[in-house]
């Protein structure tokens, strides 16, 4: 297992390189930021000077190597919008993202597993139908619509929670609820179908034939066998929750990475976009690594090539 994990860690290096290249290319083709950075009345000469200062006049590959060199020194460039180091901006926003993502993910996992297991247990009952309906709705409804409806209900009509912003736990409730709704809707059907499949396996019949209680059969023998696919989908949700919660963060004015990236794109502040996307990508990679470690722990028989 140790060697397998070491291999996985080493594999991250080429992934990071390719990732850097992709991010760099995207920004390269996205357009010339110089026009936005200078006042409209600036002349061609001033623009050319700025381009030269930023190294934008150099050929593509040269720019790329300079970029990588800078990254290695921890220099992600300066955001012209905020007039601040892009890395420190990302690091500032990261705790907000992690907080929102962490709470939403924890809630989604609990809701997803509880409802998924229960729906599998009472399959084809009215309860199962209800849970399935909830999951289908959660997947079909766009996140922004859910967010707006929650705001209308809890903030505007009932006035229980703040509309937007950050700072208190009340601010966290609505964005976390939005993300939980959307994310748990993806986890529920997966847990349910895996649970149903596992419950039909021979070893479950064996467990029952030993006289074990129903709860031991479900939570020990069946549940562990559903964990590998469930962890896979959970790991897939994490990056979506951190960087992809863009719309939710924007609606609720939650100052996380998603909003930072959104503003960066809107204003062609490419250093910020690059740093933000890089951070989300890193989190994705770490999440995958953690889920790989989890697989090893859950299923010691998995054969790693």
């Amino acid at each position, binding site marked *: 297992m140790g060697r397998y994990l070491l291999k996985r860690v080493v594999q991250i290096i080429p992934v990071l390189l390719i990732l850097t290249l992709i991010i760099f290319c995207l920004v390269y083709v996205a357009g010339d930021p110089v026009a936005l950075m200078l006042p409209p009345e600036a002349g061609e000469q001033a623009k050319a000077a700025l381009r030269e200062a930023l190294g934008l006049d150099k050929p593509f590959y040269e720019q790329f190597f300079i970029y990588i060199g800078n990254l290695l020194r921890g220099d992600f460039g300066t955001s012209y919008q905020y007039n601040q180091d892009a890395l420190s901006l990302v690091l500032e926003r990261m705790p907000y993202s992690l907080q929102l993502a962490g709470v939403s993910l924890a809630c989604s996992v609990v809701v997803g597993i509880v409802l998924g297991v229960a729906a599998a247990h009472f399959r084809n009952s009215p309860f199962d139908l209800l849970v399935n309906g909830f999951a289908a709705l959660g997947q079909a409804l766009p996140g922004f619509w859910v967010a707006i409806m929650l705001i209308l209900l809890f903030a505007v009509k009932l006035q229980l929670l703040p509309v937007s912003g950050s700072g208190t736990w009340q601010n966290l409730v609505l964005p976390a609820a939005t993300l939980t709704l959307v994310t748990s809707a993806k986890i529920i059907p997966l847990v349910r179908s895996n649970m149903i499949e596992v419950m039909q396996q021979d*070893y479950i019949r064996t*467990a*029952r*034939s*030993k006289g074990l209680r129903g709860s031991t059969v479900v939570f020990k023998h069946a549940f562990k066998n559903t964990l590998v696919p469930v962890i896979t989908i959970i790991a897939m949700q994490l990056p979506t929750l951190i960087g992809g919660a863009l719309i939710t963060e924007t609606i609720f004015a939650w100052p996380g990475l998603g909003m930072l990236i959104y503003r960066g794109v809107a204003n062609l502040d490419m250093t910020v976009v690059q740093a933000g996307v890089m951070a989300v990508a890193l989190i994705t990679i770490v999440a995958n690594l953690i889920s790989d470690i989890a697989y090893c722990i859950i299923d*010691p*028989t998995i054969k790693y090539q």
Partner: protein
Amino acid sequence: MKQTLLKVENLEVKFKTLEGMQTAVQGVSFDVAQGEVFCLVGESGCGKSLTSLSIMGLVEKPGIVEADAIVLDGQDISHLKEEKLRELRGNKMSMIFQEPLTSLNPLFTVGNQMDEVFRLHQKANRAKAKQMSVEMLRFVGIPDPEDVYKRYPAALSGGMRQRVMIAMALSCRPKLLIADEPTTALDVTIQKQILKLMKDLRRELGTSIIFITHDLGVVAEMADRVAVMYAGQIVEQASVYDLFQKPLHPYTEGLINSTIRLGDGRRRLPTIAGTVPPISKMVSGCRFHPRCPYATPACRENAPPVIEIQGRMVRCIRYAKEHKQEGGVHV
């Protein structure tokens, strides 16, 4: 006459489906004596597994089990609450299955799965459970029980896993062991070993065994008494000697004829033509009539009576009194 350990009376297993109620097992009654090996034999799909699962109380929804009585060791368990049944399972009665490769949980060690039984039924602590599990593994002839105890099932061969299953099933010295085609998935040499193990264990522990198989060769080797099942019913019951000596039911006759080979390896008769009717399209009258060489028009109309002759039982019109008076078969 040995004491009766298990008495099944008029067992019925039904499934509620979209096309209505379908009966998979019907009117099944039999006794198993103390220390006896009772074989259930029949083609695949004739209800052997459902019969045995009904005794264990393990038929899953949407299956519905009904019986006049299922008496195990003097106690009628046909209407027991799940909680009470659970105390019997793995304890007084236990079961092993056809697929040793999938019958153990892949994510827990052999030891963990063995210990469960001792911890549950004998309230053993961890250390004691381990000691008893290792002992049990040794008992079923596993060479290095301490090592196997620590292994995950994937590290063991099919034959080894079936030994583990047997060890697990016998942990609490059950009065009744149900073995549902325990050797079908194994190759011939391993099959012989497992059969020998089960015979040895029966002799040593005096456990009654319901042995399910579709292989008459295995029946001849294992059984004291045999029930032949066809399309959800028992069509004939007899001692193993009587059954092979003089099969009464045409289906039994067909089975035996299609099993026994002549010296030159050719079959004396082809296998019985046709197939078992599916439970969704059960035939009228005698369920065997479409395949029966002796079928009469009456067989298509009326379900044949259950007839007892000379301590045997057969479900065929040819042995009915009035039929015999008309010049039918004589026993």
